[in-house]
């Protein structure tokens, strides 16, 4: 059996494709237009929620390190002061014992 004869047989005896409904393109177009407001409303809702979530995360994230930072600074300052006092005390003692 040749390929062409098989092809001719299949095409000749194939079921006919049912006719499309009239104005099918217009129907599909209208359907797409109907779906658009729903889609944009959904997009608007999702983007609002995401923006609010991002703002909340940024607020929480930025607040926390500031606290830690100021605590660290305070601690370092206290350590530095203590160290300076110790050094001054040692120096004074050394000065007294020398003279």
């Amino acid at each position, binding site marked *: 059996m040749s*390929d062409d004869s*098989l092809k001719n047989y*299949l095409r000749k005896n194939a*079921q006919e*494709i049912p006719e499309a409904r009239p104005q*099918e*393109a217009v129907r*599909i177009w209208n359907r797409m237009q109907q779906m658009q407001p729903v889609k944009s409303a959904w997009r608007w809702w999702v983007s609002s929620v995401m923006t609010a979530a991002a703002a909340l995360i940024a607020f929480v994230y930025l607040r926390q390190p500031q606290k830690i930072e100021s605590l660290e600074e305070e601690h370092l300052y206290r350590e530095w002061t203590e160290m300076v006092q110790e050094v001054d005390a040692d120096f004074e003692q050394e000065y007294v014992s020398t003279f």
Partner: protein
Amino acid sequence: MIPNRAADFEKFYEAHADKVRGLLFRLVGSEVLSDLTQEVFMKAWQHRDDFRGESHASTWLYRVAYNCAIDFLRKAGERSAPGKFWQNSLEKEVSHRQIVEMLLLELSWDHRTVVVLYYFEERPVREIGEILSIAEGTVKSRLSQARQKMTELLKMKGVEL
């Protein structure tokens, strides 16, 4: 290439509807043909930015249609069950039209797809490979296996070509 206005969409639909409907009809039948056609054109419209003109618009649309058909069959759990249609048919009662219909139903999904695209839609092997995302060699081997199967079945029905 892909339109963005109602009138252009209509032109686009008219240019490609027969191909899309032809493929869908032979793959999934007439019951869901309108719904799936609508789905294909809507998806093509929504994803028109993905089409970069690397292939013909028709190749891209065939691809979208094929994916829609696969999705539908997966959801419906309706992959073909080769064997049952042929065995149930009575030898003398079937017309050539019914034989062709049964031939397609007898083929596995993969074979039926390449047969429809090659023999009915007359797409070249290279394009079928693009549509199905498979190598040309795979298309050829599927076609050869499908042809062998169809020849055997036609012989069983006494059809000489």
